């Protein structure tokens, strides 16, 4: 039944809906079939974006629409406040698309979400798409195909590339989650893999990692101990130089930690097939599923 976004009618609001990105993606989400019930931009309450009503505050939006999830497009300096506003208004799932939120803010936001029983996905990621259910984020609508593969990724466009490859291979996806490219993310790769393991519909898991941090190594540990489903991984940054931030705030090799080699090795030791190029991923999945 997919993960994280499992209800076709989940009422969703878009924070920062009157902005360039917010309005575009609100309409794209609607086109995907997401139940976008409102948007929030302080000072623009009472207007609408393509028929979606705009509210001054999340509280108003929640009171009027019963929204339970939010997608945040608010610029980085204001995004933390927007996330707290959402959590305080009772939103249970906050998907942050915004890039460049200081990690100091995210450290606190993540703890605050835990304290309040809310879940954050992102920031600096493309969000969540549960195929045939709803999309909360910015992934292109056209790349998905309903199928048995759960995808978790630290990347945006690389995820699209890989999902597209999976879909074109005749396989398809349950849920695709872009956890975001930052150092501190609301929902980790480890958590996503655990959720996919528990999800009946997901028959195979694809993990798209990259250099920096130890999420992949820790995920490999979890896979070794807890995951029965076949897992295929892809790691970007095999040829990235140390000490350089490769676009994502989190994609940096510090000293000799966070290398692609370390991650690949950890996955292989956990019995995960590591693809050397995106196009190999569906091939490996099919092998593992005996298709």
């Amino acid at each position, binding site marked *: 039944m997919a993960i994280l976004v499992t209800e076709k009618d989940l009422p969703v609001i878009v924070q920062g809906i009157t902005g360039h*990105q917010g309005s*575009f993606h609100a309409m794209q989400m609607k086109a995907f079939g997401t139940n976008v019930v409102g948007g929030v931009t302080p000072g623009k309450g009472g207007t609408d974006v393509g028929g979606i009503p705009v509210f001054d505050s999340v509280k108003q939006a929640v009171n009027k629409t019963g929204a339970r999830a939010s997608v945040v497009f608010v610029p*980085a*300096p204001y995004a933390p406040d927007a996330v707290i506003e959402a959590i305080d208004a009772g939103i249970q799932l906050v998907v942050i698309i915004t890039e*460049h*939120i*200081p*990690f*100091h803010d995210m*450290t*606190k936001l*993540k*703890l605050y979400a835990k304290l309040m029983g809310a879940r954050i996905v992102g920031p600096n990621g*493309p969000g969540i798409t549960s195929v045939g259910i709803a999309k909360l984020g*910015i992934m*292109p609508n*056209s*790349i998905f195909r309903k199928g048995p593969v759960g995808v978790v*990724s*630290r*990347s*945006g*466009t*690389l*995820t*699209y*590339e890989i999902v*597209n490859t999976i879909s074109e291979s005749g396989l398809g996806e349950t849920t695709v989650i872009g956890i975001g*490219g930052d*150092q*501190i993310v609301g929902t980790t790769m480890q958590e996503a893999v655990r959720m996919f393991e528990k999800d009946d519909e997901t028959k195979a898991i694809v993990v*798209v990692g*990259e*250099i*920096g*941090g*130890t*999420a992949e190594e*820790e995920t490999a540990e979890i896979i070794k101990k807890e995951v029965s489903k076949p897992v295929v991984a*892809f790691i*970007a*940054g*095999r*040829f*990235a*130089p140390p*000490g*350089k*931030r*490769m*676009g*994502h*705030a989190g*994609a940096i090799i510090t*000293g000799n930690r966070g290398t*692609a080699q370390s991650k690949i090795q950890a996955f292989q030791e956990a019995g995960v097939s590591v693809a*050397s*190029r*995106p*196009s190999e991923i569906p091939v490996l999945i099919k092998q593992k599923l005996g298709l």
Partner: protein
Amino acid sequence: MVDLLEHEGKRIFRKYGIPVPVFRVIRSEKEVPDFNEKMVIKAQVPTGGRGKKGGVKIVNNREEAIRAIQEIRQIDFNGYRARRFILEKAYDIKKELYVSITLDRSVELPVLLASAEGGVDINSVPAEKILKKPINPFIGVTDYMKREAAAFLGLDGENAKTLGKIISGLYRIYDELDASLAEINPLALTSEGLVALDSKISIEDDALFRHPDVPVRYFGMDKIEVEAKKKGLSFVRLEGDIGIIANGAGLNMATIDLIAQAGGKPANFFDLGGTDDPQKVIQAIELASKVTNKVLFVNIFGGVTRCDTVANGIVQAIKQLNPKFKLVVRIRGANEEEGRRILNENGIDSILNLDEAVRRVVELAGE
């Protein structure tokens, strides 16, 4: 990330109650005062291993100090020259300790790191000799952590108290200045108590908007990287000859990997980001052409960035720049047909399949 220089960090230390030597920043030899005691001259350079290269010298009077400065000026510190110097008291050091606050991505919290093995690169110290205490930012540094750190470092009495103040100061720097690292190495135990003999403070890029007073720095970056950064573009110089533009950091890294795996030599990482402005594509190609020797590979998976926008940008850029290198364009995703049509009409081939595009790039680069 902005790395502050030693003297900048020490000024901040002082403001946050961390004991530092009385020091003077020297810009020119003229500024060296008269003195007659054991002092130290230190090159202000944004790079490690300064001492081993001769950037730190003990001096006893003005003449020796001036001589030391003149000597240090000649030294190459990983591409940097010293333009400023610290002149400060040379302490009688009983012990060199290490203490810092930094983000630990794995526990997703700031951590206090402390070690009795100071004065060396902390990465070379074995884990069991480093005390590591996660700090909950809702609570901050607590007294029990300070006690534990003092015990771990073998400090008591007045020194333990000072250590507590130092830890609080470092954490406040981490928190209030959005530092990714606030480090004292060495923290010297002297006959006068604890003194921070060096400082390392790194401020997170993403938080610079909150700190307009922090100087923007481009340490460790080459000219084109600096140019890109000033334009807000995400660019990393590599050593090869195949220029790369892709949208998205992950796709970019994957593209580099594919080229390298196929035997090609990527010249750069360059994230076009999400855009709907052909001008940004032109700008990107202009920048990438500076590092491209043989082939420029544009790899786009359209989403926010639509393929027709990219195609239009490419067409205009080629007209404007008339480059000598070859161009391989791979576009997929949003508006890919329209993009392909635009390219096609302008005599530019495009490839849909990534593997095929990579093969073509490496083939062309080998010609």
